[in-house]
């Protein structure tokens, strides 16, 4: 009971997160109502839904990077695995409506002359199972990876390089047809989810709203986490890992818990993302994707949670505009943006609004890792 009160107090202490939560929910609801009475165009709904998923991915990265000092350049793995889990569920739901009309096997398996469903595809016809896997598989991968990396005291740039290797290796594995995940085509052609057609207007609105709710709950949860004594230890680990050991804490345990929670949030983001874009393929594991997500966090402002949301939405809105107007310039613009933010806005866009606390700018919290 006192724990719950302390949690609520912790969430309320920093007003940025509750304010952001209200703004996100209000915007999502306004869009939903606007779309149902025709004032908001149909294409905008899944676009915003996508941004919300990216924002959730950015929040998950901020939890480990901004607070734990773990610069993961491989969060695309957790995002992609969450997406594949829900993708597998939707593949199983297609059933005999596929091109080859096989009652059980997805089209790509029939095409490969497979006669039986691989063991790891069993259970995915049930939504609760697939939803659980979207969280558990990224969580377990993070648990094993983090256990090995943190136990060996791999930190800093070495850890970042290993996370890049992890996402690259995952991409290569998923490209292989005999892995059983659709090879380079991935999973697509989804029909329905929870009994509703996945490409209907109502479903798009529902998914966008679900993404908003997931983002808001994750923000509030992360806020409570970083405000707890656990979060204080995590920040202490980020700034002076060896000192923490002499106080009797085991930094590797704290980093592991943070990484697993973060991976599950990224998996949730991927699971919400895939039904809205209608496809998941191995390019989601491309090393550049994971780096881009880290750039969002850096642009928005690291270590503030709200900064991650701001960065993800701002960069992706810019990307949407650029790739429409000046497609060949987008990557240059992204690179330039990162350089400028690193040089002139070490605390990100959020730093523009919080100049009063500029003394914090000189601390390790915002130094590039």
């Amino acid at each position: 009971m006192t724990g719950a009160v302390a949690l609520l107090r912790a969430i309320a202490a920093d007003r940025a997160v509750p304010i952001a939560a209200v703004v996100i929910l209000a915007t999502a609801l306004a869009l939903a109502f606007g779309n149902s009475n025709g004032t908001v165009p149909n294409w905008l709904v899944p676009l915003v839904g996508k941004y919300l998923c990216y924002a959730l991915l950015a929040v998950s990265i901020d939890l480990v990077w901004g607070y734990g000092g773990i610069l993961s350049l491989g969060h695309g793995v957790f995002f992609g695995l969450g997406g594949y889990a829900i993708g597998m569920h939707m593949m199983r739901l297609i059933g005999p409506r596929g091109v080859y009309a096989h009652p059980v096997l997805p089209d790509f398996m029939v095409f490969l002359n497979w006669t039986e469903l691989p063991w790891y595809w069993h259970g995915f016809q049930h939504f609760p199972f697939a939803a659980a896997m979207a969280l558990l598989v990224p969580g377990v991968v993070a648990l094993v990876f983090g256990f090995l990396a943190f136990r060996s005291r791999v930190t800093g740039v070495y850890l970042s390089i290993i996370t890049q290797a992890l996402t690259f290796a995952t991409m290569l594995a998923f490209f292989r047809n005999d892995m059983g995940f659709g090879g380079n085509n991935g999973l697509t052609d989804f029909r329905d989810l929870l009994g509703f057609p996945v490409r209907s207007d109502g479903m798009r609105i529902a998914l966008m709203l679900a993404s908003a709710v997931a983002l808001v709950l994750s923000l509030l949860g992360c806020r409570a986490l970083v405000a707890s004594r656990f979060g204080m230890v995590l920040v202490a680990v980020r700034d002076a890992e060896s000192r923490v050991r002499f106080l009797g804490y085991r930094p590797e345990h704290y980093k592991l818990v943070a990484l697993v929670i973060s991976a599950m949030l990224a998996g949730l983001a991927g699971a919400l993302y895939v039904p809205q874009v209608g496809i998941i393929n191995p390019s989601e594991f491309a090393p550049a994707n994971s780096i881009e997500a880290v750039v969002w966090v850096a642009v928005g402002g690291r270590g503030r949670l709200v900064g991650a949301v701001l960065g993800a939405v701002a960069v992706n809105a810019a990307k949407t505009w650029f790739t429409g107007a000046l497609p060949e310039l987008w990557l240059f613009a992204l690179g330039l943006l990162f350089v400028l933010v690193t040089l002139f806005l070490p605390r990100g866009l959020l730093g523009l609004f919080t100049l009063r606390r500029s003394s914090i700018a000189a601390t390790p919290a915002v130094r590039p890792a």
Partner: protein
Amino acid sequence: MNAARHEAALAQRLTPGSLLYLDGVTVTFDGFRALNALSLTLEPGEMRAVIGPNGAGKTTMMDVITGKTHPDSGIAMFDGLDLTRLDEPAIAEAGIGRKFQKPTVFDEHSVLGNILLALKNPRGPHRNLLFTLRGEERDRIDHVLSTVHLADARDRRAGELSHGQKQWLEIGMLLAQDPRLLLVDEPVAGMTDAESEETAALLVEINRNHTVLVVEHDMEFVRALDVRVTVLHEGSVLAEGSIDHVSADPRVVEVYLGR
């Protein structure tokens, strides 16, 4: 393995009542002997000052005691525990606290936050997710903050404190941690004379309930502590006794005091 354990058990029998027992501890870095068969015993409740020129092995000795460095040979025991087999968190949990030469506090946290992190209670992640302060812990924090003269600075960011205040904050963290043995590395480096005097009084106060091992260069400070002194030189003990006794030792004068 068994032989070493037997040796350790033997050492414990040979030194009944000692809290810290180092015998023949040798540490070599790339051929350089940082510690050379160092032997040192601390009785429970004792305060000991360790002095010695740079490179005498003072910090390496603390590294061995806190598990940061594992010795090539020798025995390091703390109240029946073999320190050479434990890592830093385990040794901290067993009851050894350390203040570093360069004050290392958590800059991003408030003064209060630093004390809170050091406070003696469970260290596991799951125990700290829903952690709330109990009344007696609040009182304990207030007591620690006033002891180290930081009660008015409790909400300030630790990174904004002056050098001397950081030194005190780290001593305050040690108090909150409430270890049985405190290792204090150069507590008055960078302090004014008045601050040094207060720190000496503070350590004497702390020594009422804790065993303390303090490393210091400042001879005035060591004299003010008025405790048994161990002089280290080239990784082993050169002399031991009262400050007047070791100051009069011609070998000590030659390697340390005379310079």
